[in-house]
């Protein structure tokens, strides 16, 4: 379970997160949406301690991110993360990208790590791309390798930061299919995305953020058919355009 309690964060004088509260239960899929600059990506980065915050706390399975005694590296092992621009290691093949952390962090043998990696490549639908370098993969393929890289650490949680917004339209589906599959398989997921089709299919809860606050929350139907705030109405009108 991830608990976010009165989280506040500033970049200098600028407050990016204001009193964010949220509880994510095991097995849930939470979709976060909102206009750019609303603090969605920063929120994800606070959860795994990539960004420090000044007030409030986040606990992951009871372990506090704010507590200076917490080993953040250990914490990150159980939270996989997928980035907008894939961020694969360009000097390594798909397989090497996936096996690096299991071998260096979990100290798995190469054989075990590679076996796992091949299973994952199979699962994301590109078993034949193991020895290909990122620059020779399409965007959709790169993102699927990135998902496999995150899954290789056998995380309990997965976070997605606009995983399809850098992709050409025809590649979005192949990535979403992997994510839907993952959500239906019981993974606990936090997804920053504007893909409303994805939200409809798997989201247990939708958060709408604006200016660093969660201004609306609810089920897909509640949010989509009956947004309460004007900001949410405007936003929905824009993305459905």
């Amino acid at each position, binding site marked *: 379970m991830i608990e976010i309690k009165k989280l506040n964060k500033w970049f200098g004088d600028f407050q990016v997160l204001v009193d964010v509260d949220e509880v994510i239960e095991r097995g849930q899929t939470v979709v976060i949406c909102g206009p750019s600059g609303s603090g969605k990506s920063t929120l994800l*980065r606070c959860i*795994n301690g*990539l960004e420090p915050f000044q007030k409030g706390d986040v606990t992951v399975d009871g372990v506090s991110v704010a507590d200076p005694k917490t080993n953040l*590296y*250990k914490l*990150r*092992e159980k*939270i*996989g*993360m997928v*980035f*907008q*621009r894939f*961020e694969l*290691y*360009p*000097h390594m093949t798909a397989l090497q990208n996936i096996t*690096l*952390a299991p071998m*260096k*962090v979990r100290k798995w043998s190469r054989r075990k790590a590679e076996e796992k990696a091949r299973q994952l490549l199979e699962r994301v639908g590109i078993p034949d791309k193991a020895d290909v*370098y*990122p*620059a*020779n993969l399409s965007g959709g393929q790169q993102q699927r390798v*990135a998902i496999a*890289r*995150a899954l290789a*650490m056998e995380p309990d949680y997965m976070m997605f930061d606009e995983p399809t917004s850098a992709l050409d339209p025809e590649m979005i589906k192949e990535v979403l299919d992997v994510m839907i599959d993952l959500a239906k398989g019981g993974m606990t997921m936090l997804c920053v995305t504007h893909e409303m089709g994805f939200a409809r299919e798997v989201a247990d809860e939708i958060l709408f953020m604006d200016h660093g606050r969660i201004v609306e929350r609810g089920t897909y139907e509640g949010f989509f058919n009956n947004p309460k705030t004007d900001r949410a109405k405007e936003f929905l009108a824009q993305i459905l355009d």
Partner: protein
Amino acid sequence: MGLTYEFDWGVLWRYPYGMWLLKGLGLTIAIGMAAWIIALALGILIGTLRITRYRLLRWFGTAYVEVLRNIPLLVQLFFWFYAGPMLFGETLSRKINHISGLNIWVSIIGIGLYTASRVAEHVRAGFASIGRDQYQAVLSTGMTQIQMYRYVIIPYALRLIIPPLTTEFLTVFKNTSIAMTIGVAELTFQSYQIDADTFHGLEATTGAMFIYLILGITVVKFMNIVEKKYKIQGLVGR
């Protein structure tokens, strides 16, 4: 053509002048290589200092680069050669001035220190061209800071900056010519000496130009092999 000038290309191979040029080339290569080793080691260190989170180290790295690259190498060599020993006090400076081949040592160190400032800039640019999300992606898999630099960031950054480093490597050999001003008998010095001896400086310097050209082509060929070996597959636009 006003003045009649009798060309004598024989100075390029006639004894002892051909030998002078070869000896000069030897010294050019030796000084260039030694200076390059200093430049690479120090440059990577200072380039990394400039992205650490310790303000004092960052400040030192920036100051080093700004000072060393904004003073002509010639002035730096003069300073290290004439003023350098004096910085150690009178008794020690007299001893230093008696070191044989002092000018060669000074030119190796001077060119090395100068080139390090340029290498440091490339290293810093290499780190900077790797996006913040790339660093965070490594950390999100549970790796530590040191693992992140060792397995991902440094190998990646060094591969990215091979092309500019090739240019710097070439420049080191060209810059060794400035050591002639403190009396180092490298290639340019020797071609000038031939003029003093024979008044055929035009032929001698023309010959030296072609030797530098061959040296440059060799260095580029060598670096192409290095680059091919460490090339990141499919990455274009570099």
